[in-house]
């Protein structure tokens, strides 16, 4: 693809890697967190951290809006899916997240009509094509995905589709970052800011990070060269004593984001007073629910939602992994009780979570040679 090939050039990668080595101070450890699951994916897919010196470490953040959904909410979804006549639609990612007693995939195996969609418009189409069935869309994602849900709900309202509703579990990016930064045992030097959330919210919402917490932020694109360059830019800020938000992905991300997207979010959603994040606890004003004007499309009002809170298992140390305090293999249940097939916490549930990514892609340490 024209837009991506030049950002995957290996020779340029080696040049950048050389500049990173020249920039860092020997003996000093640097821990940089990439927040966005997409960045984690790129790092593992291309082996970007193989090109970094040993004293620069990338820590994987809570970048999976699907996997931070607490078990109780998944159970709620399963309950709705089992209501007779319901067609329950969701993204593929959502189907494997475990609730208190199984996943949506298990519910499907037990007879619930759970269908994978690629966009909420697919779900609305299913509603139009099946007027005698109630169609529910399980909405998940950060501000990148919320506009898609919002536009679909606007269309549903305008058309007057009576058998469509939305179970919203959208979350926002800033509150969990603030919660992370508030932790006293946080050990991070800088951040790689989310690339596509910023196309919606812009770069300004991240200014609190340098301003209030003194950590540099670089908003990054998703190709391996983007990430290397962004790491380089964070390191330069640290070495030069600067502390600000820089936009490495300016070719896509406008400083002010997308006003039309923000307006439609404002119209269709409102912030919940608080929302529970798997592995991170309750965070205020971090979740979106449908606004008053869209109440008739809200699945939480249309159906009996059990709303039971299921506590995170005690053994789970995801919070510490997310803050960079411990590495995945230092978690007491990593690889034994907690595996990709039977995950306990969000870091293993998400394929972009630190633990799953390490287990699936990175567990062959770069010091070990293949002979």
């Amino acid at each position, binding site marked *: *693809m024209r*837009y*991506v090939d030049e950002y995957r050039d290996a020779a340029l990668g080696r040049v950048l890697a050389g500049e990173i080595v020249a920039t860092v101070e020997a003996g000093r450890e640097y821990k940089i967190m990439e927040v*966005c*699951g*997409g960045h*984690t*994916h790129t790092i593992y*897919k291309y082996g970007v951290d193989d090109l970094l010196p040993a004293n620069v470490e990338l820590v994987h953040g809570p*970048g*999976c*809006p*699907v*996997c931070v959904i607490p078990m109780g909410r998944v159970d709620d979804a399963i309950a709705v899916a089992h209501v007779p006549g319901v067609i329950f639609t969701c*993204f*593929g*990612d*959502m189907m*494997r*997240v475990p609730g208190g007693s199984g996943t949506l995939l298990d519910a499907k195996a037990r007879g619930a009509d759970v269908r994978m969609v*690629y*966009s*909420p*418009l*697919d779900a609305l189409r299913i509603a139009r094509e099946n007027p005698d069935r109630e169609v529910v869309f399980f909405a998940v*994602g*950060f501000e*990148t*995905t919320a*506009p*898609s849900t919002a*536009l*679909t709900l606007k*269309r549903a309202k305008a058309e007057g589709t009576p058998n469509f509703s939305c179970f919203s579990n959208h979350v926002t990016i800033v509150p969990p970052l603030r919660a992370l930064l508030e932790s006293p045992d946080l050990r991070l030097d800088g951040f790689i800011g*989310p*690339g*596509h*959330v910023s*196309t*919606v919210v812009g770069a300004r919402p991240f200014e609190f990070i340098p301003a209030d917490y003194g950590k540099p932020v670089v908003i990054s694109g*998703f190709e391996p060269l983007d990430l290397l360059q962004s790491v380089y830019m964070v390191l330069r800020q640290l070495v030069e004593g600067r502390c600000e938000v820089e936009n490495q992905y300016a*070719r*896509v*991300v406008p400083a002010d984001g*997308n006003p*039309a*997207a923000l307006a*439609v979010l404002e119209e269709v959603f409102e912030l919940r007073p608080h929302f529970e994040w798997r592995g991170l606890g309750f965070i205020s004003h971090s979740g979106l629910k449908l606004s008053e004007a869209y109440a008739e499309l809200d699945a939480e009002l249309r159906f009996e939602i059990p709303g039971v809170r299921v506590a995170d298992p005690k053994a789970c140390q995801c919070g510490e992994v997310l803050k960079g305090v411990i590495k995945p293999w230092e978690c007491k249940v990593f690889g034994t009780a907690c595996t*990709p*097939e*039977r*995950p306990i916490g969000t870091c*293993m*549930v*998400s*394929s*972009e*979570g630190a633990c*799953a990514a390490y287990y*699936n892609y990175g567990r062959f340490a770069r010091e070990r040679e293949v002979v």
Partner: protein
Amino acid sequence: MSCAGDTHCITCSDEGVPMRVLEVQPDGIARCEADGTESDVMVDLVAPVARGDNVLVHAGVALARLA
């Protein structure tokens, strides 16, 4: 099982695909393509678009224009 297992999580990974506009349809939808794969995309948030424009698409919505 991990949320996406062997595929990567389109939502978690905040996937954005550059696509080219083939045909603008009524009601804010445009037929777009990337590497020969075509799909319908909501373009309300980047309007107005024209045939040949490049946009960044996530979950069926164009979020930004590309140069």
